[in-house]
Each structure stands twice: as structure tokens, then as C-alpha cells.
């Protein structure tokens, strides 16, 4: 029983990381029907910028925990900026010319450029990220969990709630929702939809950068850390549905938990298989995702 609980808890942690990244995919897809395929690289850049910042702050004789908190706004601001850059360079042109695939190529290319950039600035070694919380695990009824893992779950949920509340309550957020519902109509109502799309990209990369600094203390930071996570999150976004915020959370949890259960009860060699099988099943029977609303594309 304990084993099952332990596997599920660890799966939830990994799943929440997938969920936050997938949440970023969902944000841009809602407003512009495009995705940033360099989402994994946005995560990686966020983590590395966070690493440099936190090391600088620790060098200023600030405690690790305070340094981590002070580092967060820097990373979030960097994420916003990086997302806006991706939209400006990679997506805007494709949307304007109504190109079907231009943005795919452009965001993949930007991702590769960001990775090379990171390799040149931070090197290709995996670097250790200082942990703001004690690393000793806590035990709850035999299930052991690291404090940082709890922080990952809380942080991920917190960020997603914050963005959702912003979208539903604030006037700017309503512009985002309006654009997501019907871009042309929103444009006619005087909403600057182009700016809204830029903003959604900024938010999307911000979510990824945040995920980067959340996951960094329990793993290692480096130029290649985003590749696998970005891909897994993509699967999560498809399973959960690209139009649903709840969907990506549930999708993330499903993938994270099945990975761990398969690894333990079947074989670690097949850890990634059930998630991908699920992906294929969803694509076959409910292409809009488990929680996605079916949309009719008028051509």
C-alpha cells in the first residue's frame, strides 16, 4: 500500500511539472491557435538565468531561501520577455500571412538557437542548483517526500490559479479570453488582438521559466534539460486538451503517475510507453483531448 502511495506521490510531482509546461502551450493555443515548440528551451533558459541570479544573490551573503524568493521575480520577468521575443520573431509573421506551418519551423528554430546560446554562455555541463529548502525528506504515514517536491506542487498550482484568476477577473484578462473565443470579433470590439497574442506568449514562457526554477533544485540545470520535459508536456497538452486549463493539469497527473506505475509494476524499460499509447488513443477517439471542446474549423 505504501509503495503505491509513494509511486503516486512521486508521479504527482513529476506530473505537475509537465502540467505547468503544458499550461504554457495551452495559453498561446487559446489566443492564436499556435504553439511554441521551443517551450522546453524557455524552461531551460529560465532555470539557467535563475541559477546565475541565485548564485549572485548567495554571493551577496543572502540566505539561500531569501535568494530563491528574490530570484523568482527576475526569472518571471525574463520569461515574459523571452516569450515576447519568440512571438515577435517567430509567430507574428506566420499569423499575419496565415501560414499553416511557418510558426512551427520558426519556433523550433528559435528553440535550437536558444539552446546553442545557452551552451555558449553556461557551457554544456549539468550544473547543481542550490536548494532553498532542506533536502531531508519528510515522512507522512510511510510516504516520503522532499520539501522541494511539495513546493513544486504548490508553486505549479499557484501559478496556474494566478493566471486563471487574472484572465477571468481583470479587464486585460478579459481581452485575452475574448480573443481566445473569437479573434475576429474581439478585434472588431477594439481589442488589440496582436498585443494579446504577444502577451499570451509572454505568459506562456513565464510559466515555463517558472517550471524551470521549480524543478531545478531536485534535478540538474543545463542546456539540454528542457528537451525531454518539453516533449512530455506536449504529450500532456494533447492528452488533456489544448483548450482546457484543467485538462493540462489532469493530463500531467495522468502521465506522471502512469510513468511511475509502469516503471514499478511492469518494467522501467517501458516507462514511457503507456503515456504515448494513451496519446495515440486520445488522438484517435477524442482528438480535442480528454477535456477539450470539439471545435469546427471553418475553411
Amino acid at each position: 500500500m505504501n509503495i503505491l502511495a509513494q509511486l503516486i506521490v512521486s508521479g504527482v510531482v513529476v506530473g505537475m511539472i509537465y502540467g505547468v509546461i503544458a499550461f504554457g502551450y495551452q495559453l498561446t493555443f487559446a489566443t492564436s491557435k499556435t504553439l511554441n515548440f521551443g517551450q522546453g528551451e524557455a524552461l531551460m533558459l529560465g532555470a539557467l538565468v535563475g541559477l546565475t541570479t541565485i548564485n549572485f544573490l548567495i554571493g551577496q551573503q543572502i540566505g539561500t531561501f531569501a535568494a530563491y524568493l528574490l530570484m523568482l521575480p527576475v526569472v518571471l520577468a525574463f520569461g515574459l520577455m523571452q516569450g515576447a521575443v519568440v512571438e515577435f520573431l517567430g509567430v507574428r509573421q506566420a499569423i499575419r500571412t496565415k501560414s499553416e506551418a511557418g510558426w512551427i519551423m520558426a519556433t523550433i528554430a528559435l528553440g535550437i538557437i536558444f539552446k546553442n546560446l545557452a551552451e555558449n554562455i553556461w557551457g554544456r555541463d549539468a550544473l547543481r542548483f542550490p536548494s532553498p529548502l532542506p533536502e531531508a525528506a519528510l515522512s507522512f504515514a510511510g510516504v516520503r517526500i522532499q520539501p522541494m517536491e511539495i513546493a513544486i506542487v504548490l508553486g505549479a498550482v499557484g501559478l496556474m490559479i494566478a493566471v486563471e484568476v487574472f484572465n477571468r477577473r481583470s479587464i486585460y484578462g478579459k481581452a485575452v479570453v475574448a480573443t481566445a473565443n473569437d479573434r475576429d470579433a474581439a478585434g472588431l470590439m477594439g481589442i488589440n488582438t496582436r498585443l494579446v497574442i504577444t502577451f499570451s506568449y509572454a505568459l506562456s514562457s513565464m510559466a515555463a521559466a517558472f517550471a524551470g526554477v521549480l524543478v531545478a533544485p531536485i534535478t540538474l540545470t543545463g542546456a539540454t534539460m528542457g528537451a525531454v520535459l518539453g516533449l512530455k508536456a506536449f504529450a500532456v497538452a494533447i492528452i488533456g486538451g489544448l483548450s482546457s486549463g484543467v485538462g493540462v493539469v489532469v493530463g500531467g497527473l495522468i502521465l506522471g503517475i502512469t510513468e511511475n506505475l509502469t516503471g514499478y509494476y511492469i518494467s522501467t524499460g517501458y516507462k514511457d510507453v503507456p503515456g504515448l499509447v494513451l496519446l495515440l488513443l486520445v488522438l484517435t477517439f477524442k482528438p480535442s483531448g480528454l477535456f477539450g471542446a470539439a471545435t469546427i474549423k471553418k475553411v
Partner: protein
Amino acid sequence: MKRNLFAFAILASTALTSAAWAADTIKIGLTGPFTGGSSSMGVSMRDGVKLAVGEINKAGGVLGKQLQLVERDDEAKNEVGVQIAQELINKEQVVATLGFINTGVGQASQRFYQEAEIPVLNNVATGSILTKQWPDAKANYVFRNAANDTIQSSMIAEEAVKRQGFKKPAILADSTNYGQLGQKDLTEALAKMDLKPVATDKFNIGDTDMTAQVLKAKEAGADVILTYAIGPELAQIANAMAKLGWKVPMIGSWTLSMASFIDTSGANGDGAMMPQTFIEAPTTPKRKDFIEAYHKAYGGDRMPSPVSAAQGYDSAYLLAAAITQAKSTDGKKIKDALENLQTKVEGVVTIYDKPYSATDHEAISANIPVFGLVKGGRVVPAHPEDIAGDKAVRVKPKS
């Protein structure tokens, strides 16, 4: 026209000077990953080689000429390794090449040297295949002075089962060639002792969560974990064990001495054991001089990868001895000299007394490596008695 003539003059003069330069030096290729995940090994190896070449040149060089190193970073990528091999052979016209950290890169690159009949002294890569890539060829130009995986896996099994008396080993290996071939070797070595691992699990490079793998080993009742993987993922295993509040010894291939494992796992990695051909301890005057010279030249008080540095250093001396004996820089003559080396070469790993023969291209035999132990961020001898007194220098038995 005038400009063309000028360009031609410049080209001609540089060609002449470089030709004149080449006549005074012996060019030796030096290749390994100097950036990237395995750079701690590559950089240490390079620094060891440079140290040795500096000493050799200071003492008058070889055949009255200075040795000149041509360094190239293969980035641990097979295709880059291939490009470098072609460049070093055709453009730089090296006499021999030292290096290779990654088995895959070696496997892809060495065939060019084999075809060009230029010797390779493989000083770090451990894949068993590397010195046996062409069993049917008339001559083999690949030599090695590192402990290959066959030696390491049987040492690991021996240490865990015979010496420490563990009965329920679990094997954790990564999904790369290195990990999976090592896992196979380990399973075979255990089978020879009539033991089956209680759990055999794998993981991918970059995996962030090892809970499932470690939990399986724990539930199977493992009393020791045997590993074949590289630094960052090994650290994840040590950290996952700490998280689950379960501690059994980790014994694995020499990569447990990588700085990325030691630094990332911190206290969780203490006690991990691995075969080492060289441990950074001044057990002989030669080793003391080497360690001091290394830190004087490159700073710090801990070599990123002592094994790589020592093997790199020794490989340069082995090559110098062979060129001296061959009295020539011809690849075939150097190869023949290596296979029948008349002078004893005193290295830091061992004393090389006829290290190679026509059929045996492995300078490190099973009796040479000893077990190292991670303690307080450094690798120390696991069994100090193994290298005490006259056992400090362990020599390959005469065949």
C-alpha cells in the same frame, strides 16, 4: 593580377614556414570532449598529456625533435570525432593520436587511423570492443591504457559478492550503449558466481525522477546497488535513495568517480565505490611529483578526474618510448615498437614492462585497478591495505 601575385606570395611563404616548422617537430593528435557532460574526463586527460609532453620536450624531446600536440574537441559526438580523425590524419598529418573518452566516438573514429596505419593510444574510453574492432585485420593500430569494461564489471561483481559478502545485488544502468553493455557484462559476471540480480532496471539520460527504479530495488530486498551509468544520473540514484530513507552501498563502474556525481550527490554519494587505476594520493614518489606538478600547472587541489589525468600522462610517455625505439615517425614502425617495447616505462598508474604484444593491446590488466571510495567530496582508497607498501605499484603479469 597584382593582388593575386601578392596572395600567392603570402600563401607560398606560409606554406614554406609551416613545412619548415613541421620538420622540427613531431605532431601528435590529442582528442577528447573538452566541453559537455564528459568534459571533466576530457579536460583532465588533456592536461595529463600536456604535462607529460611538456616534461618530455624539456628533456630534449624525442629523436631530437620537440613533440607538438594538435588538440581537437570532439564534444563527445561521434560525427565530430570522425571529422577530427580525418582532419588530423590528412591535414595535420599527425604521427599518432592520443585520446578518446567516449566509446562511441572511439568506435566511429578509430577506423580512419586503422586505414591510414597511424597508431591510436586510447587512454580513457572503456568499451571492451575498442581494441578488437577488426579481428580479421593483419595489424591493429589501436592500443589502450585504460581498464576496459570486461575488467571493471568482473571487479565490481567480485568486490560486491566475494569481498563484501552481499547476496542480493540490484543492477541500475542507463539506457545508452555504455549502460546496457555494462549491465550485460555485470549480469554475466554475477552468473559466474551463481547469482542473479534481484532487480535489473534502466533509466534514460536526463530522467528527473528515479523513485520507481530505486523503489523496485528496495522492495526486491537488494542489499547492494551495482551501477553502470554516468555522473548526473548516478547522483539522481543516490538522491532518490536518500529521499526514500533507504541506504545500501553503491558499487559501480569508474564513472562513480566523476565530479558531476560527487558534487551533485553531496553527502548522499558518500561511500560509493568504483574501480580506479589511479587515486589522487602520493603513494609513490612518482605519483607525488605528478600530483604536485598537475596542481602547479592547472591550480586547484582536486583533479576533476584523476584517473583520466594519470592515464593521459602515461599514454604520452608510452608513445614517446615507442617513437624513440622505432627511430622513426612511420606509423607502422611505431606500432611494431609498441607491440615489442624494450624499455620499461615508469608511469603514474603502473610500470609498463612490455605492456603490449601483437595480440594483446591492453596495457591495464585486471590486477592493476583498485577500489576507490567517495568520502567527503574526494575519492580515497577503499581498502588502503591493497596499495600499502610494495603493493603500491601493481604491474601487469608477464604473459
